[in-house]
C-alpha cells in the first residue's frame, strides 16, 4: 500500500507532464537549493542555455513572490512578539516544473487574502495582455518609480515572468474559505 500510494502520486504528476514538484514551506534556502539543481541541469536536462536560464528566471521570481506574499504562514508556538513574527514569517506554496507541447512550464500556487484578489487579477490581466514593447515600457517606468501599493517588490517580479515567457502568462483563482482564495500562475518558457 505504502509504495503503491506514493507511486500513484508520481504517476499523476507524470501524466500532467510534471518533472519537478515542491509543496511545502517556501524559504530562501529552498530557493537556493532547487535553483542550484535547475542550474546543474538536474531538473531539465535537454534544454538550451536560453531556455534553461528562462526557466530559472521564472522559477526565482515565482518562489520569491510566494516567500513574500503567500497568505498561508507557519504558526509558531508559543506565539512570537509581533516584531519577531514579521522576521520569522514562513509561507506555504506549491511549485511545479513540467513540459507541455514542447514548452517548459512553471506553475506556482499559494493562498492569498480574498481582499487581494481583484487587485492581483487587474495587475496580471494588464501584464498578460501587453506585447513585449509595452511590457518593456511599463517595466522601465516601474524600475524608476516606487513600488505599487501593497507590493514589496515593485511589481517587477510579475513583469519579469511575463518578459521571460514565450506565451502570455495564465492565472486562475479558486475559493478556499471565507477569507482565502488559492491563486495559481502559469508561465511557459
Amino acid at each position, binding site marked *: 500500500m505504502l509504495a503503491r500510494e506514493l507511486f500513484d502520486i508520481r504517476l499523476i504528476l507524470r501524466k500532467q507532464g510534471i518533472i519537478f514538484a515542491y509543496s511545502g514551506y517556501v524559504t530562501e534556502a529552498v530557493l537556493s537549493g532547487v535553483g*542550484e539543481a535547475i542550474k546543474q541541469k538536474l531538473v531539465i536536462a535537454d534544454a538550451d*542555455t536560453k531556455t534553461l536560464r528562462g526557466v530559472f528566471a521564472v522559477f526565482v521570481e515565482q518562489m520569491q513572490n510566494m516567500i513574500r506574499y503567500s497568505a498561508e504562514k507557519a504558526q509558531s508556538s508559543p506565539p512570537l512578539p509581533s516584531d519577531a513574527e514579521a522576521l520569522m514569517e514562513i509561507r506555504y506554496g506549491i511549485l511545479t516544473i513540467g513540459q507541455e507541447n514542447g514548452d517548459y512550464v512553471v506553475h506556482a500556487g499559494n493562498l492569498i487574502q480574498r481582499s487581494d484578489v481583484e487587485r492581483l487579477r487587474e495587475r496580471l490581466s494588464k501584464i498578460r495582455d501587453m506585447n513585449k514593447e509595452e511590457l518593456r515600457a511599463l517595466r522601465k517606468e516601474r524600475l*524608476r518609480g516606487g513600488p505599487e501599493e501593497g507590493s514589496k517588490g515593485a511589481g517587477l517580479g510579475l*513583469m519579469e515572468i511575463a518578459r521571460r515567457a514565450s506565451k502570455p502568462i495564465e492565472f486562475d483563482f479558486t475559493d478556499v474559505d471565507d477569507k482565502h482564495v488559492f491563486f495559481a500562475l502559469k508561465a511557459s518558457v
Partner: protein
Amino acid sequence: MQSLSIPASIRTPAIDFDFGNSHFKLSGESYPEDVTEFYHPVFSALDTYLATLGPGSCRFDFELIYLNSSSAKAVMMLMDKLDAAAAKGATVDIYWFYDEKDDSMRELGEEFGEDLENAKFHLEKMPG
C-alpha cells in the same frame, strides 16, 4: 581609496572596485536574499569615489549572467550614479557584456543604455 573586492557567491556577484585604476567590475549572478543589504556597501564605496572624481575618468564593467528583478533595480541605481558623475564633467565608460546565448540579458543592457544621458555606453559580447 583601498580596493573593494568581494568574491562571488551562489546568489551574489563578484565585486572588483579598483579605485587606483578607476576600474570597476560587477560579474556573475545576482539574486540575493536581501538586495538592500548586499548592495548597500557597494553603493557607499562608489558614492565616496564619485564624490571626488570631478573631471577625471572611470570605467565600469557589467559582466552579468543573470539578475533577478530586484537586482535590476540596484543595477539601475549604479548606472544612475555613474551618469550623474558624467553629467558633472567626468568621463565615464560603461561596458555591458552579455552572453550571446541569452538575448534577454542583451535586451536588459539595451534598456539600461537608453537611459544614460552623459556616460558612454558600450554593449559587447562576453569574451569566450
